[in-house]
């Protein structure tokens, strides 16, 4: 809608920024506890506003008067602009870049993108590294959701992210098994309540070939707004790693790994992170031969890729025992310069991104013998600390490592009994923790659903934002730019 420049009509544009959000809010995408009635009331107001906006958009008229609420809303800030007594033009004209960057970095992602259109200076600032870094330092944690059964979008080349303004539904996916779509859920995280919305729905189509059988894809890492996606189908020799920024829509395809997965080799661990010392982004993965050669240990071998270098480097055998196909989760949780995975029985394996070495990290106490058979594990970050989730048939225990690397600092923070869970309790998969919120709630994914645990009311509820079949990870959106290099061409999702 190209109307924000017309006099008296800017309210239309303003609304158009919100239209999609409102649709989502109205239909399905919002979830909030506990001030429900207040929320409902504001929703009703918004619906009315929206209805007005749609009406006025349809009958576009330059001189049309805005509806009452609109008028009030627009007027209020305007008054504050024009009626100020101490307006000092000279300072305003050269608002220091530092201040502009500071103010911009505090705006929501979508508003920042719209602000790129304010003037040339602002457009360039958003790409400036000082803005990018400041914004990243303030960017709140959200969720990246990989929805596994969306509807199919055909694409002949590369990854595609497409905005979808409607809720993906299983009954809309009509043709193939497909690689899935990625969605970003923004968390409005306030001290006494939270609200979730996915206003800007990404559709990531990872199909590189229009084939009858499509490869699988997995999100295997997320750091500083970049996500690492693995795209594989051994039968067709497909084994590609992508690094992508869903906000700027840039992505690179890494060169082929030395070992491709296939009949004889399988990937066990995958990780993506950044070295705080050098600022280098690295992808690491570890392989294992599928066939066990008699009298020889089934060795795990790793290789690492530093973004911009163009080649994978072998790290040789990994001194950690790990069984192939034991875990469906490859995702390496990145924290404190290390990627983390759960290996073997109750052990945490780490990869140091600077030293490029694997090590075991002290684990919390093992489960009681009687519970071993029902024990499922996952790793997450809670209040900046590494935490481990032990899912049992009857309960979930969340252990937090208060001091990184210190065995005695493992503390059992939360125990959630199965009885309080109204949705189905996971029996075969671990519960995944996505984020701990300021109001004490925990956002979790299990049984392919995005759920919220509220410690005050002692409830676990399905947010019902999406149809089932999803996985989710913590994700902090950023404007980080991918760099072109000889071996990595930066592409833009089309």
């Amino acid at each position, binding site marked *: 809608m190209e109307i924000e420049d017309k006099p008296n009509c800017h309210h239309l544009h303003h609304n158009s920024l919100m239209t999609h959000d409102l649709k989502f809010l109205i239909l399905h995408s919002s979830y909030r506890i506990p001030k429900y009635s207040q929320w409902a009331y504001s929703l009703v107001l918004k619906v009315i506003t929206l209805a007005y906006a749609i009406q006025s958009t349809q009958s576009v008229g330059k001189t049309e008067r805005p509806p009452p609420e609109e008028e009030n809303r627009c007027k209020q800030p305007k008054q504050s602009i024009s009626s100020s007594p101490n307006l000092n033009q000279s300072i305003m004209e050269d608002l220091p870049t530092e201040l502009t960057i500071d103010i911009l970095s505090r705006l929501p992602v979508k508003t920042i993108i719209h602000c790129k259109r*304010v003037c040339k200076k602002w457009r360039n600032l958003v790409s400036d590294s000082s803005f990018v870094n400041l914004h990243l330092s303030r960017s709140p944690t959200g969720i990246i959701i990989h929805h596994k059964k969306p509807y199919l979008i055909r694409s002949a080349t590369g990854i595609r992210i497409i905005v979808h303004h409607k809720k993906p539904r299983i009954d809309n996916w009509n043709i193939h098994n497909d690689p899935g779509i990625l969605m970003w859920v923004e968390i409005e995280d306030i001290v006494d309540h939270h609200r979730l919305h996915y206003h800007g729905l990404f559709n990531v189509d990872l199909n590189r070939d229009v084939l009858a059988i499509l490869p699988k894809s997995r999100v295997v890492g997320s750091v500083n707004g970049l996500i690492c996606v693995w795209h594989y189908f051994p039968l067709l020799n497909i084994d590609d790693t992508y690094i992508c920024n869903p906000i700027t829509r840039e992505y690179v395809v890494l060169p082929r790994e030395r070992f491709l997965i296939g009949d004889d080799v399988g990937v066990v661990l995958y990780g993506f992170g950044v070295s705080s010392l050098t600022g280098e982004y690295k992808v690491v993965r570890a392989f294992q031969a599928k066939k066990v050669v008699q009298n020889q240990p089934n060795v795990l071998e790793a290789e690492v890729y530093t973004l911009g270098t163009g080649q994978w480097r072998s790290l040789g055998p990994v001194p950690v025992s790990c069984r192939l196909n034991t875990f469906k989760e490859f995702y390496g949780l990145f924290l404190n310069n290390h990627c983390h995975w759960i290996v073997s029985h109750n052990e945490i394996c780490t990869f140091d991104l600077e030293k490029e070495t694997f090590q075991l990290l002290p684990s919390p106490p093992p489960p009681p013998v009687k519970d071993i058979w029902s024990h499922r594990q996952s790793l997450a970050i809670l209040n900046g600390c590494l935490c481990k989730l032990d899912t049992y048939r009857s309960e979930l225990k969340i252990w937090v490592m208060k001091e990184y690397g210190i065995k005695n600092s493992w503390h059992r923070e939360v125990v959630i009994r199965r009885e309080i869970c109204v949705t189905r309790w996971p029996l075969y998969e671990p519960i995944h923790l996505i984020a701990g919120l300021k109001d004490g709630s925990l956002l979790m994914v299990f049984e392919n659903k995005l759920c919220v645990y509220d410690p005050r009311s002692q409830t676990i509820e399905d947010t019902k934002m999406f149809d089932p079949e999803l996985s989710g990870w913590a994700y902090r959106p950023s404007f980080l730019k991918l760099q072109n290099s000889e071996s990595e061409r930066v592409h833009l999702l089309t």
Partner: protein
Amino acid sequence: MSKKTLTLMSKDKQLFNIEEHLAVQSVTIRNMVKEDGASSVIPLPRVDSETLALVIEYLNRQQAPEEDEDYVKKFVDERGEIPTLLELAQAALDLDIKKLMDAACMKVADLIKDFTLEEVREALRIENDRTPEEEKAIRDEFQWAF
């Protein structure tokens, strides 16, 4: 130790007295005091007297540490006009008073986040120099956000 007083001078040559132990919340002033004892008047050539009066009021606050955050928030909330807030942010930037600058910038961001582009330009006195081609390029680049 007796309470030492410093004198700050605004752009329009007005003088403000403030106790040194309060003034050194400003890193800029703290460094000046460290360097030469800052016995004379400290000139602030970019800060007008109205803004400096606000800064002095802020520096003179007597809050318990646990209430300070709320106070700073309320302080900028009460000066909810964008030009005032920008002046305040600019002064806080020059004087290196991080808390005040953060709060002022946060408040401006809060105010402009629901503005239209035209309102943002008007509020921050920005000239619209973009071309239709650039506009299209941004829309193409960030399709999902439009």
